[in-house]
């Protein structure tokens, strides 16, 4: 019934990053990519965002680090990572061979740390871009997260922007009264795209132990439970900026992804869904292709933000 158009293409450029499909694996849910070899068909994806890197290696938080919830989970991993130097030397030679776009994710406790990590990553050959995780507590600013104050965020992004010419995505936190000023701050400071959202703060109690389940007490909520909240923030952020929005939060199916696209996302990231179904992201890409076919569209472009009123 649908018009038989030329085979639709999912390839696109988002925030200056070329992607074979607008579907990426989200930071912290795909390790350094390598762990998923054999479980994931990388060329079917747009790309992967590696787990957050800090200047020094970090052991991470005490156990338990994860808690199961209704259609979601809490995590308080504590940015466990090998440190940017070890990553660049030991991991990158293998990671760079992944047959899809690879973005590194940058975290830090101070602006100087973000800049140092970004500068080191800037030297990596083949890195598709950087994503800033601004949900870390800002030690030189009283522990308040970088991503909560537009001025603090703008300064941070501007500083990192100076340290690298690579595509720079800024990943925003939903734990704010309004995401719009933060989206605008990232844009004003030169971000190429914003990723919306990181996890929601949450907590579970262990009834037997009579204490919080997580060793870290609180953690970040992800999974389908947060999807309507993520869609809200995408809708709002996409209305506030001109740079592309990368939607993230609870996406499990192509239909979920399409909701984000209609709300204004140019691409999506898939996080927790990979745990439940390692091939979730590539199935989403395949499903988006079918959706285009069914609608007689040759690219996703006409659908981006098409649901906004």
């Amino acid at each position, binding site marked *: 019934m649908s018009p038989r158009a030329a085979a639709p293409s999912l390839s696109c450029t988002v925030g200056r990053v070329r992607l074979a499909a607008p579907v990426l694996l989200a930071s912290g849910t795909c390790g350094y990519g390598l762990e998923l070899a054999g479980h994931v068909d990388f060329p079917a994806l747009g790309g992967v965002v590696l787990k957050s890197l800090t200047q020094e290696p970090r052991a991470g938080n005490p156990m338990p680090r994860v808690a199961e919830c209704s259609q979601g989970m809490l995590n308080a991993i504590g940015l466990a990572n090998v440190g940017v130097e070890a990553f660049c030397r030991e991991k990158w030679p293998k990671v760079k061979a992944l047959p899809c776009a690879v973005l590194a994710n940058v975290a830090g406790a101070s602006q100087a740390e973000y800049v140092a990590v970004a500068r080191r990553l800037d030297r990596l050959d083949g890195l598709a871009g950087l994503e800033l995780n601004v949900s870390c507590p800002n030690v030189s600013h009283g522990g308040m997260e970088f991503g909560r104050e537009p001025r603090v965020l703008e300064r941070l992004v501007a500083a990192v922007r100076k340290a690298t010419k690579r595509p720079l995505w800024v990943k925003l936190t939903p734990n704010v009264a309004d995401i719009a000023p933060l989206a605008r701050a990232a844009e004003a400071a030169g971000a190429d795209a914003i990723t919306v959202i990181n996890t929601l703060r949450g907590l579970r109690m262990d009834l037997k132990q009579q204490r919080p389940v997580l060793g870290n007490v609180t953690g970040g909520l992800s999974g389908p439970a947060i999807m309507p909240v993520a869609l809200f923030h995408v809708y709002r952020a996409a209305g506030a900026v001109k740079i592309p929005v990368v939607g993230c939060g609870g996406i499990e199916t192509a239909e979920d992804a399409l909701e984000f696209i209609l709300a204004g996302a140019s691409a999506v990231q898939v996080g927790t869904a990979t745990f439940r179904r*390692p091939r979730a992201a590539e199935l989403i890409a395949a499903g988006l292709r079918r959706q285009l076919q069914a609608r007689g569209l040759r690219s996703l472009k006409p659908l981006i933000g098409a649901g906004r009123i």
Partner: protein
Amino acid sequence: MNCRVLRVRRAGSYARLWLEAPDIARRARPGQFVMVRPRGADAPFWRRPFSLCSADGRRSVELLIKAVGPGSRLLAASRPGDLLDVTGPLGTGFSLDVTGPVLLVGGGFGIAPLRFLAECLRRRRIPCEVFLGGRCREDLLLQSELKLAAAGVACTTEDGSFGRRGRVTLLLAERLAGSRKPARIAAAGPEAMLAVVADLAEKHGVAAEVSLETVMACGLGVCNGCVRRVNGQYQRVCADGPVFDAAAVDWSQA
């Protein structure tokens, strides 16, 4: 991957499931596990880890599932023909490069990976002795299979309903106190049991491998949620384990 349930055998709160999984059956090594969820089940949210209890090398693998909560109950209630979503084989396995006799110490469903190990050792003509413990008779599973594979099977139950009354580590202590020193110990079961095994192994200077358990969100080594202190560092039980050198594990949290 979708795997069909070929056969189910239930005994009390345990179920043995045979799954059609040629790919896993071919690659599996004892000590490895799979992440499993009934197809279409929305809850529980995560898949659940289960050790491979046997693999025929060609077509099917076997799981031994104890129903302890919502996930395991749902799986234990599977019927032949049902489809399960299964990923594996995952994790490291027990060492097979060993000569002398290996002592297998299992508690409850911990016997699952040890049964697979026993059969692999037999194929390599490496003798092994099995020590099996449980709370009651119902917990002592796979005895006929183990007897075929091992040089001996000794049992304990805490209520005395079968074998010696007491804990299985009692038998291990007696065995280690004897003269024939084993080449290695392999253990799987409750954390408290593993800690005692590690202690006994160290005292008697015998190398021991243990299969640890934690809650697992991904089972793939990507979330860093399942860590345990091993050799002073956080290691992922799912990818760096679940089998670890007992002497390297930090037992203080046990």
